[in-house]
């Protein structure tokens, strides 16, 4: 039985090592503005696919309302910008693991998230809406969709996920890596509805008018914020000041009109990405 003893020994050593490492709580990374400027680069985490905040255009470049804000931040700091595209559910772990400096991905400020990361003041107010497959006509409310055989698709880890899981008692909520796959599930008829925020629902519906319709009135209110690692109040203050300036100089309004109202980007962004 000596191989069993060897296995037990290996396991013991592994757990002890983990325990010792765990004893050192991770040093608060100095990720303040000075550190970023010293690095010469702002690493921004985002999750492409939330129209029109972050999307990939035909030239395979990241564009969107959030992307513009991030670029503005880097410009103001005087550093280069690097985007890292994660699945939405991987963003906060990436921030915790110091892979990125901040997250700007249409992320709602929630109390639970505030335990893990810090947020700036809200830069956008949104709310959850419903995208419905035309095979289920005349849906007027959530109750119409809350049936036992129905499937509601959401993007894993988003507030849509949390809201849907809370609100639908009979229907099944299926979580996918990214709203693109959730949308695909709807288009293939395997899901009856997708819960996501109004801007995404409106645009996705416009991309797929033959198969979907939408109920755009939001049934929640969501404050979107920029997330930074915990323990960096200086960075939060800097970003809040930036956001204030962004609004006061009219940059915000310009960007808002471009991405949400006039939408001249429409031709350049292929659907379902």
């Amino acid at each position, binding site marked *: 039985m000596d191989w069993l003893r060897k296995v037990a020994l290996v396991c013991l050593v592994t757990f002890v090592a*983990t325990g010792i490492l*765990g004893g050192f*709580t*991770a040093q*608060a990374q100095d990720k303040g503005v000075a550190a970023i400027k010293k690095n010469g680069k702002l690493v921004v985490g985002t999750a492409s696919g939330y129209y029109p905040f972050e999307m990939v255009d035909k030239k395979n470049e990241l564009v969107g309302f959030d992307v513009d804000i991030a670029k503005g931040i880097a410009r103001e700091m005087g550093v280069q910008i690097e985007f890292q595209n994660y699945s939405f*559910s991987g963003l*906060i*772990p990436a921030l*915790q*693991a110091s892979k990125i400096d901040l997250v700007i991905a249409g992320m709602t400020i929630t109390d*639970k*998230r505030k*335990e*893990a990361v810090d947020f700036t003041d809200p830069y956008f107010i949104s709310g959850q809406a419903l995208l419905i497959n035309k095979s289920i006509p005349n849906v007027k409310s959530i109750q119409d969709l809350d049936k036992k055989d129905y499937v509601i*698709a959401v993007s*894993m*880890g988003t507030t849509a*996920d*949390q809201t849907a899981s809370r609100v639908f008692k009979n229907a099944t909520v*299926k*979580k*996918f*890596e990214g709203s693109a*796959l959730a949308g*695909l*599930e709807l288009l*293939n*008829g*395997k899901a009856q509805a997708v819960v996501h925020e109004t801007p995404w629902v409106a645009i996705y519906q416009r991309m797929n008018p033959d198969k979907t319709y939408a109920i755009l009135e939001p049934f929640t209110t969501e404050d979107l914020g920029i997330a930074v690692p*915990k*323990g960096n109040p200086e960075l939060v203050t800097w970003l809040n000041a930036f956001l204030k300036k962004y609004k006061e100089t009219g940059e915000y309004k310009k960007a808002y009109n471009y991405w949400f109202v006039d939408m001249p980007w429409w031709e350049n962004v292929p659907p379902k990405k």
Partner: protein
Amino acid sequence: MYKLNFAVLTEYWPALLAGLQMTVKVSVLSIFFGTLMGVAGALAKTSRFRALRALAFTYVEWIRNTPLLIQILFIYFGLGVFFSLSPMVASVFALSFFSGAYITEIIRAGIQSIHKGQREAALSLGMTEGQSMFLVVLPQAVRRILPPLAGQFITLIKDSSLISVIAVSDLTYVAKNIVTTTFRAFEVWLAIAVFYFVLSFALSWSVRSLEYRLAKSD
């Protein structure tokens, strides 16, 4: 400041167990069907008929040279455009089809490693081709291929984690869910790795005992 908190595991224990059950279920089904496909494939590859050999060859080469993730996405979302497959069915189908190709090669090598004399002796005793294969050659081949076969089964258990992307509530899917609600990436993923380790190790241990018992007949 990341403070370790393993208590989150006890809080979500029922969900983790349910995910483990699903992983075991999908793995067992896929091992079963994959082995059936592997036997069929190996027989096709060693058959007299050129058409069967070509078919098996195409099957094996296609599957072995494309990533499993792509196969899963193709079967569920791609084919899903034309006909509806539930996530469970799509997963088992994809995993069986995938492992079937590798098992085909393993069994084929096993068959071909048995001396031609065995088949000839069986035929000269009056057995049919089929009887010689299933009563004489394959039983001997099985003992030889148990190690690589076990390896393939273990790979399958680990590869089954990919079905989480089509929202099957397996261990990995449950884990992702827990991480997104608790943000305890370190504790959860460590625990999941241990779960998969225990599963795979248990399987490889059983196969080793099987090998030992079969070897005693020497």
